[in-house]
């Protein structure tokens, strides 16, 4: 361990990891309870929450927790996720990334173009989910909205959740595929080699180290 210490770079603080963890846990609970009410063949998942009525009661409250904690992540990271010209080039050549040829792509900063795009997709879907979720929240808010609004909201809610879940599948898979990434969220650190390969511009920024 001691041998590696100077090889490791801090990527996320404890607070950032805690914040992320809260979003992750609430997301899983919401996806399970939401899918349970979305498709009848998954209704059995409500058993994890104490039955259908409890899944229905808990889902929106957990949703508020996710939304608020996501806002925490959003305010922490939005500045790092502004898309640049290089990011657009990166995105247009995303195939090189998928085939493990990152050296052909413009050097990524703290986040690459794909991560940035995903960040904004999450921001948008979270906002839609929260707003449409309030509109269909029984018994507190839904009775105050016109039926046409509620019908639009259920469709938007399902659609935004679908996009978000797809995004998270990608997000989790990328973290599994790119070795060394999970450590950033579990221990807060990454290796220099990891940073040099995946986020060279960021490595230069934090260490002043020249690109190899």
């Amino acid at each position, binding site marked *: *361990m001691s041998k*590696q210490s100077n*090889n*490791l770079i801090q990527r996320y603080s404890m607070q950032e990891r805690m914040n992320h963890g809260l979003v992750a846990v609430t997301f899983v609970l919401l996806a399970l309870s939401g*899918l*349970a*009410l*979305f*498709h*009848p*063949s*998954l*209704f059995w998942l*409500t058993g994890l929450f104490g*039955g*259908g*009525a409890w*899944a*229905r*009661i808990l889902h929106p409250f957990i949703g508020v927790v996710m939304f608020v904690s996501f806002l925490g992540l959003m305010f922490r990271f939005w500045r790092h996720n502004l898309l640049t010209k290089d990011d657009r080039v990166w995105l247009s050549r995303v195939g090189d990334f*998928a*085939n*493990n040829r990152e050296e052909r792509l413009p050097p990524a900063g703290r986040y690459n173009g794909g991560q940035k795009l995903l960040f904004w997709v999450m921001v948008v879907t979270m906002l839609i989910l929260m707003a449409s979720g309030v509109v*269909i929240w*029984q*018994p507190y808010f*839904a*009775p105050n909205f016109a*039926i*046409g609004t*509620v*019908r*639009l909201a*259920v*469709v938007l809610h*399902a*659609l935004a959740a*679908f996009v978000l*879940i*797809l995004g998270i*599948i*990608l997000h989790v*898979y990328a973290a*599994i*595929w*790119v*070795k*060394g*990434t*999970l*450590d950033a969220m579990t221990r807060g650190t990454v*290796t*220099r*080699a*990891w940073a*040099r*390969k*995946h986020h060279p511009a960021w490595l230069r920024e934090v260490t002043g180290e020249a690109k190899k």
Partner: protein
Amino acid sequence: MATQSLQIQRRSADSASVAGGSQGGKVAKLIDISKCIGCKACQVACMEWNDLRDEVGTNVGVYDNPQDLSEHTWTLMRFSEVEPDSDNFEWLIRKDGCMHCAEPGCLKACPSPGAIVQYTNGIVEFQQAHCIGCGYCITGCPFNIPRLSKKDNRAYKCTLCSDRVAEGLQPACAKTCPTQAITFGSKEDMVRHADLRIADLKERGYANAGLYDPQGVGGTHVMYVLQHADQPELYGLPKQAEISPLVSLWKGPAKPLGLLALGLAALGAFIHYRKVGPNVAEEDKGTSTSAGGDRA
């Protein structure tokens, strides 16, 4: 409430079980608005039979009382003062309540297996024991009928007195109606009866008299004889009664296609990993810093 002596044709959130028992023997309630005198005996009979007591409301200047359907009011006389054409004033009185659609929007939207059932005789009934209180039935209903109870958060509506019908009796409202504006029988008989009534109304000058049995929801097991069938909105009825396209999308193709796409995404990730292999920074190879490694 659960009535076991009727055969179930369809259950909510359960595409696997369809049509148990015979398809025949559909029942219907026919409400002839031209015969209704607005006495509200049907409301009272409904309260009596189903043991419902709504709050005593306040008079707001119209005869509607209570002012809306609720978990305690499954049927309600709605009074409309209208001018169907420029030189006529009419007082239309409609007994509002569940239409018992052949293609029920409530049942389509309901996520809880068996919380809404459709019997082979056409009656659509809520099974409160399975209701989770999500209100999707309200979202799905084209006629604005289901109501969530503020007490137990379960949805309630007219049962078409399924418990009486199962015993060969007619619904309490039909039984009590003093002018026989409400009649009950087989759907065929009710349509035939309506034809006679419509012919009579046409003779009396209601050229647009007709039957309200909206085909947009596959027909209904509660039908109306309307003096102005060309203008159902005069009575507070939708002109094009159908399940909202948004609800059809949401509880139709979106369900299987959505899950399929999510499944394919996970599968795609798996295939990608098998094909491309893990993305490891060269210098990290052989060290234990990659995922799942050193946790000292």
